[in-house]
Structure formats: C-alpha cells, structure tokens
C-alpha cells in the first residue's frame, strides 16, 4: 500500500479513537453555532434588533405629530417604549426630562426622545424633537438612529401637511388655499381620470401624503392621490440576489463560523506532527521506505479530508437547525469546501513548520485564527470596518472562503462565477504550502 495512504489511514484511525478531538471537531462547533445562531437571532422570522429601551417624554400637549410618532414607535418592534416611571409611592407617573437624564446616568437607558412643548409651532414649519443617546455601542446606535428616522418620517408627513396647510391659509387666505387645491385636484383628475372632488376632499383632509392613504379599506377614494404621489416619486425595490434564501441571517453567517472552526480543527490536527515527532515515530517511519514528503502529504490529505467532513457536518447542522439550503448548489458547495479546507490545512501545516513546540503552535494559531476571523468578516460585516481593515481582510483565508460560501449559498452562483474564489483559495494554499515545505526541510521536525 502506498505510504501516503497508509499514513492517511493511520491518521483516520487515530482520530476516530480520540474522543476529545471528535468532540472538538464536530460537536462543539455545532453547539456553538447553535448558540451563536440563537444569540444573533438567525432563526427569527424577521431580523433586526428587538426591544431596545427607548424613553419617551411628551411635553407637547395636544401636538398631533408627537402623538402620531409615539403611536408609530409603539408599533415598531425594535423599541420598548418607556413613558412612565414609578414615584416614591409606587405609582406610575409620566417620565420627565430630568428623570430621563438620571436614567442615562444610571446606565438604565441609552436612547430617549423628548417632545418639547414647542414640538409644533405656528411660527415655523416642521417639528422640534430632542434625541438623547449614549452611543457606547456604535452598531446599536447606528441601527437605532436609522429605525428612529424611518419611523418618524413615516409618521410625520400627514401632520406636517396640516402645518403646511395652516401656514398656507395664513399666508394666502382660506379662499386662495381652496382655489389652489381645486386647481391641483382638477389637474390630478384629468391626469388620472378620476373625480376631482374626491381628490380635493383627500387633500383638504391631509391624507394625501399619509402612508395609510393607500389602505385597502378605501380602495377607490384613497387610491387616486396615493397613486399620484407614487408616480411622482417611484422607488422600485428589487432584491437581485438571495431571493431563494430561506434563512438570510444564518446563510450569511454560517460560512464564516464554519471556516473559523475548521481553522482551529485542522491547525490542531496539523500540529499533531509535534506529538509524533516527540514520540519518535518519525524516526521509525522514516527508517522505513518512506520519504518526508509522504508524511507531509498524508497529513495534508488527512487534514483536508477532516476539514471537509467537519464542514459537511456543520452545514448539515445548519440545515437542520437553521433551514439553510445546502443542497440546491451542492456541487459548487463541495468545491468551495474543498478549496477552503485545503487553504486552512495549508495554514495549519505552516504553523507546524514555523513553530518550535505544540504550545507555541497553539498560541500562534489562536492569535492568527481569531485575527483572521475578525478581519475576514466572520464576526462582523467588513463593510462596517475602516477602509484599511477592509483592504487587510482580502489577505485572509476567512474572507475568501466566506465570499465563496456566500456566492454558493446566497447567490446560487455558477461554477464559472465561483472560479475566482476557488482560484484565490487554491493560490493561497499553494503559496503557503511552498513556504511550509521550505520550512520543514530547514527545520527540526524530522531530525
């Protein structure tokens, strides 16, 4: 039997007996992915943050805009609105700005909206709102800012139109305003072949810019002005990639996690060379008709196969736990798994070739794997990182493997589309392997 095959089978037999390695390779990553997945909420029907405390103080008695925004915020699942607090007697009392500021000092809230008494003013057009925040978590703050803006701008237009109508009436008089609206309604009626009176009524009610104006309960009357503005500002939203993805969050994440765990596993397997050296096994093996290259290739094949099996196990776990579709582009998935696994194995072999002891190899591995995982986007989207970090990320195995996995699982790519990623990973593996062989020939591993 070929020495490479013999040593490869030896590694498999050895691995099968090592319960700790089995546990660390298959069970621990699956459990961690399950935990991480649920921590990040990848199994939820809708993604995004939920239940962030948002204190709201409404000092604007009777301000329609404040009431409308608060009502909209209460419907937004991102936030858990806090509008009251308990007084000394245990009774609920409305929040005050002072109380809100004290809650900030106590680090009990990080976001608050205050509608001051002059939220709406007859003297000015628009709304005045105070937004207090503690941006200790940049990602959370950016997310909250975005959702707050969306909610406010969705809820405020109708009341703003009221304010605008009042200002117009004050400026040009009631008759002038009515005349203006009637001329607009006539134009709309002619353009859309509808009753100008209905359009006029809608405009006078202020429903014309309201998002609810297109509600299904008044299809005939409300549709006209809504259609009108839809045609004025028409935003077409189209998801051009990943439409078929069943669990978007998990599909985005699983590749990065899988590569990170695989790096740990194959690095550990590769550094098992130290144990064999310590036990004197290389002296015995090399005294047989076996070359150093046979040992290295057998180890390389074993680690690559181990990586493949681990990835397969993790993707099966992903399918079972998070409904990730791993079968519709299976051939390409196998190819990218093979490329990623061989690149990760090359990394492990490099560690074994440059380190002088298993402890040193383990330390270097932990440092490099965590660094590569962070830079490569396994933990956070690299688009959130500074430009120079984004450039660095392209130097990591994790980045190219993750991109490759996303191409397969998210974009359902063709083999041709996948080729660049396969090529880069294979190139990384080839370069690292060349360095490793050079190091092994100069090092003490086989002395």
């Amino acid at each position: 039997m070929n020495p490479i095959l013999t040593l490869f089978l030896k590694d498999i037999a050895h691995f099968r007996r090592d319960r700790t390695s089995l546990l660390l390779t298959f069970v621990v990553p699956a459990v961690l992915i399950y935990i991480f997945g649920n921590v990040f909420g990848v199994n939820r029907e809708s993604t995004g943050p939920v239940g962030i405390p948002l204190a709201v103080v409404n000092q604007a008695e009777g301000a329609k805009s404040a009431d409308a925004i608060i009502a909209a915020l209460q419907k937004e699942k991102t936030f858990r609105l806090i509008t009251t607090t308990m007084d000394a007697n245990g009774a609920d009392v409305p929040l005050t700005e002072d109380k809100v500021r004290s809650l900030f000092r106590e680090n009990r809230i990080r976001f608050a909206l205050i509608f001051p008494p002059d939220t709406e003013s007859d003297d000015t057009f628009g709304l005045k709102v105070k937004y207090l925040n503690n941006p200790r978590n940049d990602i959370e703050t950016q997310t909250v800012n975005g959702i707050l803006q969306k909610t406010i701008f969705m809820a405020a237009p109708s009341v703003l139109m009221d304010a605008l109508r009042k200002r117009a009436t004050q400026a040009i008089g009631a008759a002038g305003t009515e005349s203006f609206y009637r001329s607009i309604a006539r134009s709309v009626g002619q353009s859309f072949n509808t009753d100008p009176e209905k359009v006029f009524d809608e405009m006078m009610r202020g429903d014309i810019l309201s998002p609810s104006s297109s509600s299904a309960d008044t299809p005939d009357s409300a549709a006209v002005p809504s259609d009108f503005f839809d045609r004025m500002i028409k935003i077409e939203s189209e998801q051009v990639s990943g439409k078929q993805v069943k669990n978007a969050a998990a599909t985005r994440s699983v590749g990065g996690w899988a590569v990170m765990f695989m790096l740990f596993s194959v690095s550990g397997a590769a550094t098992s060379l130290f144990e064999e050296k310590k036990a004197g096994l290389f002296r015995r093996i090399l005294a047989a008709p076996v070359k150093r290259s046979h040992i290295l290739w057998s180890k390389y094949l074993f680690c690559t196969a181990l990586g493949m099996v681990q990835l397969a196990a993790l993707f099966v776990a992903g399918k079972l736990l998070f409904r990730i579709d791993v079968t519709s582009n299976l051939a390409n998935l196998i190819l990218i798994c093979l490329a990623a696994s061989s690149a990760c194995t090359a990394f492990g072999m490099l560690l074994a070739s440059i380190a002088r002891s298993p402890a040193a190899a383990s330390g270097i591995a932990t440092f490099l794997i965590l660094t590569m995982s962070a830079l490569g986007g396994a933990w956070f989207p690299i688009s959130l990182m500074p430009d120079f970090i984004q450039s660095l990320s392209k130097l990591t195995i994790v980045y190219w493997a993750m991109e490759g996995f996303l191409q397969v699982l998210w974009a359902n790519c063709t083999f041709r589309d996948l080729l660049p990623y396969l090529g880069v990973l294979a190139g990384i593996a080839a370069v690292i392997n060349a360095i490793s062989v050079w190091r092994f020939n100069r090092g003490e591993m086989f002395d």
Partner: protein
Amino acid sequence: MLVIDNVTKSYGSLTALQGVSLELKAGEFFGLLGPNGAGKSTLMALIAGLRRPDSGGIRLDGQALTPDNLGSRNKLGFVPQTIALYEDLTAEENLRIFGRLYGLQGTLLRERIDQALVTAHLQDRRRHYVKTFSGGMQRRLNIVAALLHRPKLLLCDEPTVGVDPQSRNAIFEFLQMLNSEGLAVIYSTHYMEEASKLCSRIAIIDHGRMLAIGTLPQLMTRLPFRESLRIEGANLTRDSLAPLLSYGELTSDADAHVLTLHANTRLSDVFREAEAARLPTSSFQLTRPDLEDLFLHLTGKSLRDT
C-alpha cells in the same frame, strides 16, 4: 554485510562522529557502547538512512544507505530509543501500519502480525490499546514492530532505557533468540552489562570517535592489566605485602589493599609468592577487569559518571 567507511557527521560546530569505520557480518550481535552524547544515536540514524553523513559512506550489501535511497530500507529494522508506537491504537493496528509501510499486505501481513504478537507474548492483548500496556510490553511491541518485514539487520537504539530488570531480561532473551535465528543486530547502550552479556563484538565510542572495537576478550587485552587482587586483613601493611609488588601495582585505602596485576602476570606465581611470605591467601579476592575498567582506561573517566 554492513560497511561503514570513515564516516564523519557534524551539527554546526559540534562534531558528532569523526572518521568512524567498521564492518559487520551477517548474524553478528554488535554492541555500540558509550556514554550519552557519545555519538551512538547519530551513528544509528546514519545507518538507518535518517541522515546523510558529511563525509564517508555506509553501505548495506553494497547499497548506499542515505535518506534518498529507499531501496535498501527493507533490509533494515529500526527500534528507536523511545517507544515509537501510537498509544491510542491497538497493538494489532500499530503492527498493521508499520507492516504496510514496508509494503506488506493481505495474508502475508496478517501472518507476520500474528507471528510478531506471539513472539512478543502479546497475542492475548492484540486488540488492547498500547497505552494500557506495561513498559515491558510496550518495549517488546516496539521491537517486533521493526521485524515484521524480516530485516537482515536490526538497529536497536538503547531499547531498554527505563525498563525494569525483569522486562530487560525478557528483552535480552528475545533479542538473543532473534540473533540465533540469523538476524544481525547493532545494539547501542551505555550499560556495559548489556553489551558484555549480549554482544559478540563491541565498539567503544566516545566524543564521536571509535576508541576500540573487538570481542570482549580482545578488548580486555587493550588493558595493561588483567585482574586485581583485593586483600583484606587488619594486620597487613604495605611492608608486609612488599613481596607481591613485583607482580602489580598496589593501592591501599582504609578497608583493604588492591594489587592490580601487570598484564603478563600469572596468578599462580602471585599465590605461590604470597604463600611463601605466609600471607593469608584465603582473604584474597580476585576481581576480573570489565568494560567499565576498559572505558576508564581509554577515556580517563567512568562510564557511569558520564
């Protein structure tokens, strides 16, 4: 069978072997005796083809033994100093791996494994993990793992390090049995008892140089003395022992006198002279020189102190 011709090997500035030459015949049990760091393991590694000599050459049946030449490896069996076995695999699995590395397979491999397990008295433990074996059992398996392919020459690099006396004797008997079946053995050790008990020919090596080589009697002739007489007696003084001084060199300590005999001295002459001088010959204790004495003589230091 094995020819080592003027081999030199250095590691940086350290010369591990310098101009070592020897020849080994088929079926010979050859001992390499020397302290730790003498160069024994380096010589073993060169013979096993693990390393390349800086100069000189090693040939087995006319074939060069180098790391690149795998062709002659089937004639060699190598027993490393450490127990080079996979502890998490069974005895049988270990033997299967090492047998396959030498190209054995199928029925032949199974037969050789069975024979090896019987030879090592491990047939009942074939499916037990090596890590559950005693030190002696592991050592025996360590040896038979090098014999599966029926080598002509077995290299044993200090195979009894850390072994209890009982297991050590079992290993000796085992190796002697293999040798009696025609296997040539090179056995490196720093225990002179092992070398003198097992080896038909011995080379004494120190600081990378071969200091002496030959059979035990041949080596003993290198000593300028053969035996010594230990003479105990409360009333005996150096003056009273003066008649014996012509036969050897007398040294004294608090407990006794020791007469180290000259190489050409006959014991019968010494005893005749002692009886004539009315010395108590019944208290004379004859001590024969051993490899320790030879090593001390050749290097100026004790083997056990190195």
